[in-house]
């Protein structure tokens, strides 16, 4: 597969960049580009043309991804050509020239059946891959099979692949290994299987466990029953032990009670009650006497009190007011003259402050200053200067803007003149809205014109290609015409028709005996007819035979005719397309002019007019902006002037309210404001003095009237000397009367209390007497001494009865439900010593028993816990673990199988490939190696030195046959090793070329590490390789271009230079 032409329409930095690889003879194409010239992009373009543009590409930085296009004309070994275009996308990315997706078969044809990874590795060679792959030869110690196979797939490190597979397999499994993954997994599997087995509890084991539990429970039960018996006996003995002393004490108390005999029982508190009654009787008699004396004293005090009832009836509030008024009245009388003087002074000051103020202002009520008026006048005085400043500034800015507009208009006039001089639109009335097309419209025409040009160029190119194709077909048809005429189906049909006609004539004769005889007698036509039929039959047979024999030629001729017809159809289609394109171009031109018709401007090309439109639009924009700014400024100035006028109106109104004319200054206004404030202050002072005097006079009058009225009622005429004296006397007398009233009430209250106490003391004395008589009656005595003896006997009998009852209850409690008689029987049979000894025995027995019960309970608990463990699903979990581990083992086993089989298959195939191809490859490689090393080596051989497997050795050019030195790969310099690898790669290429169509060989600066001499030799070798497949040699070293020119004849070398990112590639030699 060869690239005839590569058209980088839109890819990486390239736009419509063409690399023309068409040459008469096979040649090496050197594509030279300095750094940044796009060499790498061009390399990627070739890959992407064949195999598609990757999803993430580095070549979409100039053109949008969807617009990336790589076009090419490609030709196969049988000279079949195809125009293809590759676009970026996921599907149908290979197109024909008309943009129609090509079928999959064409894509396969395009890559000559070479898969992408194979193309990348086998048909591509960079300096890095050359050096790397050459080193890989060493890793296999020059093993011939590995080397040839590695070179055959493009230099992978086959030895490394084999080693990798083996070591990975080793890490998974070794027959005697332990730490390998599968070995470990197998050990775990065995453990899991064992764990499952051990966790499983069968029915018998379970039943056995149940039996163990039952036995342990029975044992425990028996022990507990015996323990219960012992504890019951222990309880009984402890009871006997407890009641023996109680019984003895009871017998002694019963005896004491019997000696007291028959006793009349008095209440328990009889003695206390008798003593208390005696004491009360004495105490109350003394208290009665004291109370009688106190009551007599209180009654004497009450009768000695004097209280004037009329004065006491005067409400206390009036007396209180009178008492307060005495002090106030004295003070007010002293202040009266001072208040009168203060009023006279204030009236004088008011008069003084009114001087200088207009009388009509003083008369007007609204002339009173308020805060709002004062603030209004002061703020307006400040506002005036700011307003004046704004108006001046606005006027200045408006003037400046008008000047700028004038300058722009002057420039416009100059520009119009300039356009006129250059033959452009005569006049450009800038401020009138000249109707010129929008920039976007011009852009649309620009795009449309460019499209026309591109389509016309493509059409032209296709026409040229078709013309060439037509020439070829005509040439080949001429060849057919020059050699013998070809048999044709038409000629055969004609011959057979003639034969059928003649045969028809013969059959017609046969049906008529007379005519038959006439025809076959004498000079009849019969024999001639027969001879004609025979001749026609022979010719038809011969023609049919030729048709069969020359089927291929006929088919080739037919194909050529079909191709010619197809070519003519395509030609006619292309010409028709051309007509349509030209028509569209004319229509575009007319539309262009129509677009400008309204503007009065005669348009040039869209590209030229785009500048004009831009400049016009820019200038018009500036004028419009200036006008807008000017109108804004004018409006602002008007607004400021109105504000100044409004201020003046308000100022005049404010001043008139303080009696000043509109022309008064701010300082005049300030002086007037101060004078008015002073006057108002004096007014306030005079008003205050008047109010104080009036208040004093009112207070004096009110007091005197009240004192006089009260004196008339409650005082004698002689006592009424003055209002103040009368008031003082009334107050004192009223206070005394009130005090006496209070005292009388207190005496009466105490009298009532003492009377109550006297009655109570009398009642308590009577009650105590009655109680003493009742006690004597109960004891059956008649005096107090006899009563005291009866009390003592009763107390002794009662104490013994209580003790006996307590003993009885203690005994019953100790008996735990048994009756007293039974207790006495039980105790009578026991002795305290025997009881203690038996109790000690029982305690020892019980302690031993507790230990036995604890042991039995432990045994039962253990057995039950064991049963609980059996009940849990330990075995099921273990089985789950077992199943999981089985899956792990299977996973690792399969991976091991894959790795082992892969390594084995690869090893076998390496050997097979070596045996099949070593002859031709080694022979070709020897010749190439000799040339590449300039004769320093003359061959590459297989050597069995030191092992069963053949290894590569290089034969030096220092001798012939066995005399020559043989060098193993590790003995080669790195440069020579690179050349050996290149020789093997090219030899493999030659070998592959015998079997299939090849893709172009693409070298990317592969020779930069060769010295000049060997680089020249390598380029010469590549010149010969060009006969096998196309050679594209990319470099950005000018020196390699020079070396190529030295190494190759002119007709075997084409140098393409990538000048810059956007320049078209230029073919220079």
């Amino acid at each position: 597969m060869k690239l005839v032409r590569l058209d980088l329409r839109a890819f990486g930095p390239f736009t419509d960049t063409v690399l023309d690889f068409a040459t008469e003879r096979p040649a090496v194409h050197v594509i030279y580009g300095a750094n940044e010239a796009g060499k790498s992009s061009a390399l990627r373009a070739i890959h992407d043309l064949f195999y598609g543009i990757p999803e993430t590409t580095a070549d979409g930085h100039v053109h949008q991804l969807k617009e990336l296009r790589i076009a090419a004309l490609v030709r196969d070994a049988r000279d079949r050509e195809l125009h293809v275009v590759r676009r970026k996308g996921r599907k149908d990315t290979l197109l024909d020239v008309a943009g129609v997706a090509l079928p999959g078969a064409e894509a396969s044809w395009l890559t000559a059946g070479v898969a992408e990874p194979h193309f990348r590795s086998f048909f591509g060679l960079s300096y890095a891959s050359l050096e790397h792959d050459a080193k890989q030869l060493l890793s296999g110690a020059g093993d011939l099979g590995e080397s040839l196979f590695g070179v055959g797939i493009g230099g992978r490190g086959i030895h490394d692949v084999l080693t990798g597979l083996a070591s990975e397999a080793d890490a998974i499994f070794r027959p005697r290994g332990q730490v390998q993954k599968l070995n470990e997994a197998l050990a775990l599997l065995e453990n899991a299987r064992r764990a499952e087995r051990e966790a499983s509890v069968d029915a018998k084991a379970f039943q056995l466990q149940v039996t163990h539990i039952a036995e342990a429970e029975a044992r425990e039960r028996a022990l507990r029953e015996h323990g219960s018996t012992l504890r019951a006996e222990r309880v009984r003995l402890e009871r006997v032990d407890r009641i023996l002393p109680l019984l003895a004490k009871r017998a002694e108390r019963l005896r004491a009670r019997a000696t007291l005999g028959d006793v009349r029982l008095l209440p328990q508190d009889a003695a206390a009650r008798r003593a208390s009654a005696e004491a009360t009787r004495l105490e109350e008699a003394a208290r009665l006497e004291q109370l009688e004396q106190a009551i007599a004293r209180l009654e004497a005090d009450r009768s000695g009190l004097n209280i004037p009832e009329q004065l006491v009836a005067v409400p206390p509030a009036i007396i209180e007011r009178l008492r307060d008024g005495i002090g106030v009245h004295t003070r007010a009388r002293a202040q009266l003259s001072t208040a009168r003087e203060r009023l006279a002074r204030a009236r004088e000051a008011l008069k003084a402050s009114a001087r200088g103020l207009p009388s009509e202002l003083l008369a007007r009520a609204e002339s009173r200053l308020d805060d709002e008026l004062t603030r209004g006048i002061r703020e307006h005085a400040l506002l005036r200067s700011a307003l004046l400043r704004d108006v001046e500034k606005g006027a200045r800015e408006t003037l400046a803007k008008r000047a700028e507009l004038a300058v722009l208009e002057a420039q416009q006039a100059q520009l119009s003149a300039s356009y006129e001089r250059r033959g452009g639109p005569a006049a450009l009335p800038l401020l009138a809205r000249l109707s010129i097309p929008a920039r976007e419209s011009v852009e649309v025409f620009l795009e449309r014109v460019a499209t026309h040009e591109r389509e016309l160029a493509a059409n032209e190119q296709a026409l040229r290609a078709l013309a060439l194709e037509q020439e070829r077909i005509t040439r080949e048809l001429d060849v057919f015409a020059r050699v013998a005429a070809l048999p044709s189906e038409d000629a055969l049909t004609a011959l057979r028709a003639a034969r059928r006609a003649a045969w028809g004539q013969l059959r017609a004769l046969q049906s008529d005996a007379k005519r038959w005889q006439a025809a076959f007698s004498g000079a009849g036509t019969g024999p001639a007819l027969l001879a004609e039929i025979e001749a026609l039959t022979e010719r038809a047979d011969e023609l049919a035979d030729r048709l069969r024999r020359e089927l291929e030629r006929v088919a080739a001729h037919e194909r050529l005719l079909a191709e010619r017809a197809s070519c003519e159809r395509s030609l006619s289609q292309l010409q028709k397309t051309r007509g349509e394109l030209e028509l569209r171009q004319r229509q575009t031109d007319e539309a262009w002019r129509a677009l400008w018709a309204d503007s009065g401007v005669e348009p040039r090309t869209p590209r030229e007019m785009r500048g004009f439109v831009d400049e016009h639009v820019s200038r018009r924009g500036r004028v419009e902006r200036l006008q807008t700014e000017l109108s804004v400024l004018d409006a602002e100035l008007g607004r400021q002037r109105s504000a100044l006028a409004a201020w003046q109106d308000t100022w005049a109104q404010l001043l008139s309210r303080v009696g000043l004319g509109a022309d008064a200054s701010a300082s005049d206004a300030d002086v007037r404001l101060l004078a008015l404030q002073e006057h108002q202050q004096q007014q306030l002072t005079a008003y205050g003095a008047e109010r104080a005097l009036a208040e004093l006079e009112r207070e004096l009058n009110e007091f005197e009237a009240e004192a006089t009225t009260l004196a008339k009622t409650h005082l004698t005429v002689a006592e009424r000397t003055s209002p103040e004296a009368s008031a003082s006397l009334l107050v004192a007398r009223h206070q005394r009367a009130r005090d006496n009233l209070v005292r009388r009430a207190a005496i009466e209250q105490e009298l009532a209390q003492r009377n109550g106490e006297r009655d109570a003391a009398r009642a308590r004395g009577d009650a105590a007497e009655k109680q003493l008589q009742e006690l004597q009656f109960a004891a059956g005595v008649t005096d107090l001494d006899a009563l005291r003896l009866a009390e003592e006997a009763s107390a002794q009998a009662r104490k013994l009865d209580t003790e006996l009852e307590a003993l009885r209850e203690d005994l019953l409690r100790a008996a735990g439900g048994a009756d007293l008689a039974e207790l006495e029987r039980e105790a009578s049979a026991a002795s305290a010593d025997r009881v203690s000894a038996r109790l000690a025995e029982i305690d020892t027995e019980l302690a031993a028993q507790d230990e036995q019960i604890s042991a039995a309970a432990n045994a039962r608990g253990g057995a039950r816990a064991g049963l609980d463990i059996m009940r849990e699903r330990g075995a099921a979990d273990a089985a789950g673990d077992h199943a999981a581990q089985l899956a792990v083992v299977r996973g690792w086993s399969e991976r091991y199988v894959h790795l082992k089989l892969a390594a084995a298959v690869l090893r076998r195939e390496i050997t097979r490939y070596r045996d099949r191809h070593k002859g031709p490859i080694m022979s070709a490689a020897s010749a190439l190696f000799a040339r590449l090393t300039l004769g320093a080596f003359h061959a590459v051989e297989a050597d069995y030195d030191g092992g069963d497997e053949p290894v590569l050795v290089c034969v030096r050019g220092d001798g012939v046959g066995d005399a020559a030195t043989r060098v193993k790969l590790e003995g080669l310099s790195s440069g020579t090793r690179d050349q050996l690898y290149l020789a093997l790669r090219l030899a493999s290429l030659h070998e592959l070329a015998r079997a299939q169509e090849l893709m172009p060989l693409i070298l990317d600066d592969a020779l930069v590490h060769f010295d000049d001499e060997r680089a020249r030799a390598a380029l010469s070798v590549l010149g010969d390789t060009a006969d096998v497949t196309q050679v594209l040699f990319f470099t950005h070293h000018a020196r390699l271009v020079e070396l190529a020119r030295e190494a190759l004849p002119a007709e075997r070398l084409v140098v393409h230079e990538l000048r810059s990112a956007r320049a078209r590639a230029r073919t220079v030699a």
Partner: protein
Amino acid sequence: MTVKLVHAADLHLDSPLRGLARYPGAPLDRMRGATRRALENLVALCIDEDAKLLVLAGDLYDGEWKDYSTGLFFASQMTRLREADVQVVWIRGNHDAQSQITRHLRLPDNVRELACEHAETQLYEDLGIAVHGRGFATRAVTENLAQSYPERRAGLLNIGLLHTSVTGRPGHEPYAPCTLDGLRSKGYDYWALGHVHAREELSDDPWVVFPGNLQGRHAKETGEKGATLVTYDERGIRSVVHKPLDVVRYAQLPVDLSGARDFDDALEVVRVQLTRAARDAEGRTLAVRLVLFGASSPHTALRGSPQHFAENVRAVAVDVGGDDLWVEKIVWQTEPSLEQALLRQGEGALAELTSALDALREDESALQELAAEELSDLAKKLPAEVREGDDGVQLDDAKYLATQLAEVEALLLDRLLSRRSGDTGSEGA
């Protein structure tokens, strides 16, 4: 009066879930005791639906399973049913016939086992039901048991309880064979069958039903598993409804990788499918077998390092599914893309290698010979349980070996062609 009964079979209590190799983040606890929890669900179904009778058509435990705690657990669940006044009737299946547990276990008095020596009838007159049945006396019963079943009892709902493969079902031993017509001829209202693990309604007049097993246990037992709820009244059976009761569900998830352009792309496609599967799992844990198919560009790279891809897929499963997803296995059915397929058509070292693999695939004896040379050490070490079964590593089976060659080819091409810097034509200088 409407009455409900539940029909279940093939409980296989404590039978482990197979094929679930553990990995970090896998929902281990959700897998434990799955068959027990499924049985708990069955008991809860009976109680919640107020069913009066549970019929169990055999195979309560795996035949070789000996752990008695399994039986005790079964007994405890039957006790729950007794407390809820639910009667249970069951027959032995082929597994129960050899089960030690069955022989020793005592069950509460609401549970009635039908005889193995002859067919018998258990009457539940208060429920209006007659259950006819006969269990397996031995593991392999090849006679037609159904023939010996008694005549229908007039005026009752007649149920035939039978452990059978009917006329044979793939993957199941052909025990107690019978025909559908033979079953129909008995005139029963409902045949409660067991033995076949996939749910199947063989007939609806009369009803002949395999309820399937309660809980799937390996990748071939996929989909919903559970029991059948039967409702009937004086007029006969009114409804037969399948009730899913499984707690872990095996599922096959086909994933089309034909659109994937690289490793990450492929992983993203898998992520989308796993997310959808987890969402549809209705709170159950899914044991998913991913079946990857389609012709894709990253085919070689993915199949060349399947473990790497599998680790990533499992991490994704943990991420999107949490406790609801377990990636059981990844099955590769992807094909190389068109361009990669070209490798086999061309000439040269690679084409010869792929041709050699193709030839080996066809040559059973060569393949077995190669395996004998390369894998004999492994074969000696692998226990029988690893080698046997559908998922077994069958090193002496040519068909098994041939299927592994696809993996071998992908592995080789990945190693031989993996991209390397310095490749002309795409990386450039």
